């Protein structure tokens, strides 16, 4: 399982697969104020990126993996 759901935060593990996108989307629909913790993430599939861009959730922690963080920041902070 790539996602661990806390009360209002999803903690993303190392890799987010294409299947995770649907799960993530469902959760974000149900938790409009949900936060995402990406600190451990080293890669997420583009489908997840789409979900994040469409939902614009609060990112409680950016990926520690710098190249990934740079791209996600570029995507979520126009």
């Amino acid at each position, binding site marked *: 399982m790539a996602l661990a759901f806390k009360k209002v935060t999803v903690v993303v593990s190392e890799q987010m697969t294409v299947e995770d996108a649907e799960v993530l989307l469902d959760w974000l629909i149900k938790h409009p104020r949900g936060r995402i913790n990406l600190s451990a993430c080293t890669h997420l*599939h*583009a*489908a997840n*990126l789409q979900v994040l*861009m469409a939902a614009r959730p609060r990112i409680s922690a950016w990926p520690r993996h710098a190249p990934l963080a740079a*791209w996600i920041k570029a995507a979520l902070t126009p």
Partner: protein
Amino acid sequence: MNPLLDQFITEGRDILQTIGERLLQLEDTPDDSALMGELFRLVHTLKGNSGLFDLPEMTRVLHAAEDLMDAVRDGRRPFDRPVADRLLEAMDFVLALIDEIGDSAESAPPNTARHANDALELANALRSLLAAAQATTPTATETEPAPSPTPAAIPFESLPSRIQQELAQRLEAGEPLCWLTYEPEEECFFKGEDPFHQVLQLGEPYWRRVSSREDWAPLDELDAYRCILRFEAILNTPAEALHEHFRYIPEQVQIVPLQPPAPSIAPAPSSEPPPDAETAWSFNVVLEAQREILGLTDNPPWLSGRLRAVATTLEAAFASIGQAVDRDALQQALHSADASQSSQPLLHWLDEQQRLGDTQLPAAAPPPTTATAARPEAPEAEEPIKFGRRAEDRLAGHTLKVDQVKIDRLMNLIGEMVVTKNALPYLANRAEEVFGTRELAREIKAQYGIINRIAEEMQDAIMQIRMMPVSFVLQRFPRLVRDTARRLGKEVRLVMEGESTEADKNIIEALADPLVHIVRNSLDHGLESPAERRASGKPSEGRLTISARQESDRVVIEISDDGRGIDPERIRRKAYERGLIGEPELERLTDQEAINLVFAAGFSTAEQVSDLSGRGVGMDVVRNAIACVNGTVELHSQLGQGTRLQLSLPLSMAVTNVMIIESAGQRFGVPMDTVAETVRVARNDIRTIKRRLTTVLRGRLVPLVTLNDLLGLTIEQAPNGDDEFAVLVVRIGPDPLGIIVDDCRETIDIILKPLTGILAGLGGYAGSALLGDGSVLLVLNPRELL
């Protein structure tokens, strides 16, 4: 199949063959840097070739192999067994793909996508070796090129001014900046693609943007799996590298090399390029390159030539966009650049020229200077076309590659020719005996002599074409021996000699399976384990030698090992246990005779049946296979010292010279190579000694048998009018033996065809042949008969 693909397959097989050989050589001499370099180059070449076609699986594996070889070559990773194993495995995969492509009749390579997983695994396996090496060598760098995004219409001005300035400086410094826009197709997720991954592979861009191609739907209507992303970036990566990176989805990316700004940053071309955008693009790339070259500060001996080449290039480039060039000024600039050994005058000229030409891309094509403006500014140095040179240039070599099928056809035709020609003597006889025209008969015979000579020469010529080096079958052995020895936990050095010895294609091909079997036998049963060898005072590494040589009209192949040899005592015992010999023979058989028992059907000496030699296939199969092409096998063994098998085969099996004999009212052929002589023996000279027929020939006692006995017929052999029997003296073992027949006739050349169908199981026959009069001749095999 298209010629390019054809060429790729042919060259690919050649290269793979050489790669395999070099890998094995490298295992023996891992420090041979020349060998290493060659190996790298071969892999590199093959990868380059595969890239010309849509063969991502092959390219992927070869790319990984190349990276690994590169690391090995640079000493970042030692060449060891895992490296050799992985590379061999990878090359096997590539060969399988090439075979698959070769088998398909399509003009384009078939889709090899179903091998994608294998390719991925192989590539990962190769790269894991690399990763292991890199972990210990932190200086190693990623080889993956870093591409970047492009815009549909680059809103250059929309970039932060800080970025604009930085880009301007970098472009001035000659960095190959590119603007990349990547718009993955909507259904790409369903194809297993991950555009984000692609983008992350590009490396760190100077600037980037991720956007959506349409507004995002409300979350509860969002289709997460319809990709509407757009990635943009500016990267310090040559456009070619970016094209390479997105090679399989070129329609989804736009890659625009950025130009150094004129006064301010010039926007890159718009999304819809003008008709000859390609020209303008190329012009810019070329100009940029010349600027970079002129910016070099080294001073090599070839500087003058380099400057002149730049001048030529610049002149051509401007001509290509139809911009007039002040050639005198250019020559002057070149001259002073040459004199001062500095690029400055040329750079200055280029600045001037670009200013004149309004610097930027031509808006439209200029009017042509001539009606056919193909070479408007052709350099004066141009020489008239040298006719005839082209043909010379194209002469690749003096070897012609011909499809085997064509040679086979030629062979069949000459076979028919030989048979047809043999009808002429019959015709001559008929002319004389039936029609009584002796004159005509003589003429026919004379013509026959001439045709016969030409046919023989033709046969010889065709046979020469069919000659192949033994290496054709030997080349697989280094790998086979290596792999098999490894599986058995044995250490074996393979020595091959005389690989260039040639023989007929059919002979060579017939040799393949028996040789494999013999070599496996040697590895399996002959050569001992390293421990066993050391215990008996031998070096732990066993030695297996395969040598080939020509001896008159035979090719002789010897396979010898320095293993444990064959124990005649054990053979006797086994043979007795299996009922192959009775008690008397147990005592009487010499050691050599005992050893030869391994050729008896159903004999297998293996204590335990291994998966290598298999069960039930013994040396008898080998001997029969060799005998099928008129070959013989001799086995010599010295207990504790090794085994030597000697195969002797005819150089050519195309034409067999047989003697026609008669017995029991039928005609048979007997191969002349088994016939020592034919004699007539009076009935009185035949004695019965120890219940065996014998006679004395030139003071020597020769045992006799009758052919009818051998054939299981109960008919007496018929003597001639003088009560003499015709005797065929054959030499099969060491001593001559006489076979009594009814009559010996002429000798003829025939094309021997092996018996097929239900007749194939019939022992004692070498095969059959069609005669000139249309009848079929059965050819005896005295070896089997006796």
